[in-house]
């Protein structure tokens, strides 16, 4: 026995390997392959992933990646940062911080240094907290994916809730620590000045409005209202008009070759005429075509590169999230590995207790970019109430255990605890009100 132990100490690597093989073997050996629930769960997760791929990728994710990429390139971050610097007035900094997540932070790994910078060298604790909170919830990708997968109502409730939250939590933190805040002295405002803007603001606004318009109308869903249905009937006509306008804008103001643009338009038009009834095809060709043209233009290569970065980063995570959600929870109305009764006991209905549990779970769990959406979808299908769902969405992406640990090293234990408590309390309250009224 002792000999074996010394042998293990001499070759720890081999020992670990042996343990790993043993565990893997035992898991496979005892897999309940004959249980119906088990085999069903795998089928469910494949079906769910397939449904996502069909319903959400082309019309929703593809253009959203392109828009996120364009935001990273064409929106001057300095123009926003100016309002968050040490000399900015506090109320303005707070309001700008609560909405600037839409423009600045698409990837969660960029949020923390920005947060620390605003806190230590910029507008201070309130604005920094507001930015930290709203960033992951209101960036364009999060809003689009939530609205598309969970429905427009929950999507807008989430975006609105996040901005409101950011304002309130930021203001509370500022008031709580106002003495300490008054003593801060600004070191330098490096990083907070406006950098050179290449295109006039009006052009940038039109450019993004057109792209967001295309995204919104292409995803317009049928609903019970008359005007809503009227728009639904015309959605592809409206989408094509907006796409043409975007093409014209790119040729006029981005100096793209008119010849290339006409070829792309012809291919898109042809595919729509030859294979009618599949709007996804011309749409996908259009988006990919615009991205390829961007990649061909030296001055706009960055747009294609950024878009590709987002795609690489988010796509695998999202699909893995969908697959796991399907495996554990199944599609709505079907069963996954976790019995629906468990979900019902924990977060079913809209009671205060289940809302509180949902927000605490959300605060500690780590959701990598956007995976919270399919998970909430699965939970909703298994019987979660919409109040707890909103609570989870509001507390989820803003906080996680690893995230808390980093925040703690920047602002200290006490402030971190106050912040987390505020998030949980507010998420519970908002979720409870939303679920019951």
């Amino acid at each position: 026995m002792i000999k074996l132990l010394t042998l293990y100490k001499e070759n720890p690597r081999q020992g670990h390997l042996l343990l790993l093989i043993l565990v893997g073997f035992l898991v496979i050996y005892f897999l309940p392959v004959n249980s119906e629930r088990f085999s069903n769960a795998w089928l469910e997760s494949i079906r769910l992933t397939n449904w996502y791929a069909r319903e959400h990728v082309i019309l929703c994710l593809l253009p959203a990646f392109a828009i996120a990429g364009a935001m990273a390139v064409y929106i001057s971050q300095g123009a926003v940062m100016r309002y968050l610097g040490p000399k900015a007035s506090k109320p303005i900094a707070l309001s700008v911080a609560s909405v600037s997540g839409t423009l600045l932070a698409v990837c969660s790994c960029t949020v923390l240094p920005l947060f620390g910078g605003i806190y230590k060298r910029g507008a201070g604790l309130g604005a920094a907290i507001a930015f930290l909170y709203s960033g992951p919830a209101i960036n364009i990708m999060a809003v689009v994916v939530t609205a598309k997968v969970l429905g427009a109502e929950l999507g807008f409730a989430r975006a609105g809730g996040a901005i409101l939250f950011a304002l309130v939590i930021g203001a509370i933190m500022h008031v709580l620590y106002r003495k300490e805040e008054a003593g801060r002295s600004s070191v330098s405002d490096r990083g907070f000045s406006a950098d050179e803007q290449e295109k006039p603001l009006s052009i940038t606004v039109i450019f993004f409005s057109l792209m967001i318009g295309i995204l919104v109308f292409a995803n317009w869903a049928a609903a019970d209202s008359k005007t809503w249905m009227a728009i639904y009937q015309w959605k592809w006509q409206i989408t094509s008009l907006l796409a043409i306008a975007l093409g014209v804008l790119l040729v006029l103001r981005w100096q793209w070759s008119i010849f290339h643009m006409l070829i792309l338009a012809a291919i898109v038009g042809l595919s729509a005429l030859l294979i009618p009834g599949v709007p996804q095809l011309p749409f996908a060709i259009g988006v990919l075509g615009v991205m390829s043209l961007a990649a061909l233009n030296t001055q706009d290569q960055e747009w294609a590169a950024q878009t590709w970065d987002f795609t690489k980063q988010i796509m695998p995570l999202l699909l893995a999230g969908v697959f796991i959600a399907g495996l554990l929870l199944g599609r709505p109305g079907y069963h996954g590995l976790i019995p629906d009764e468990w979900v019902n006991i924990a977060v079913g209905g809209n009671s205060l207790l289940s809302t509180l549990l949902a927000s605490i779970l959300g605060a500690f769990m780590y959701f990598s970019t956007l995976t919270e959406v399919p998970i909430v979808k699965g939970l909703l299908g298994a019987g979660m109430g919409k109040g707890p769902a909103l609570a989870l969405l509001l507390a989820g992406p803003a906080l996680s255990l690893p995230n808390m640990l980093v925040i703690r090293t920047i602002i200290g234990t006490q402030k971190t605890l106050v912040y987390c408590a505020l998030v949980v309390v507010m998420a519970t309250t908002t979720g409870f009100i939303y679920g019951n009224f």
Partner: protein
Amino acid sequence: MKFTIYGSGCNKCQTLITNAEEAAKALGVNYDIEKITNTNSIIEAGIMRTPALAIDDDIVIEGKVASVNKIKDWLT
């Protein structure tokens, strides 16, 4: 030549490191690489957006991955 790369270690920072190495090798410059991954040190360096690259303690790019050619321009 000293490269300092700031970033929490995500994909983009890795690309920036390889690009910087490639640029230095192409020009035949001797270089050291320092990676700053601690969030507090990044903030103290005055960086707001990662990844960022400093050449001889002079911050040349922030929030973006610089291409090999761009880094070559800065080195010459």
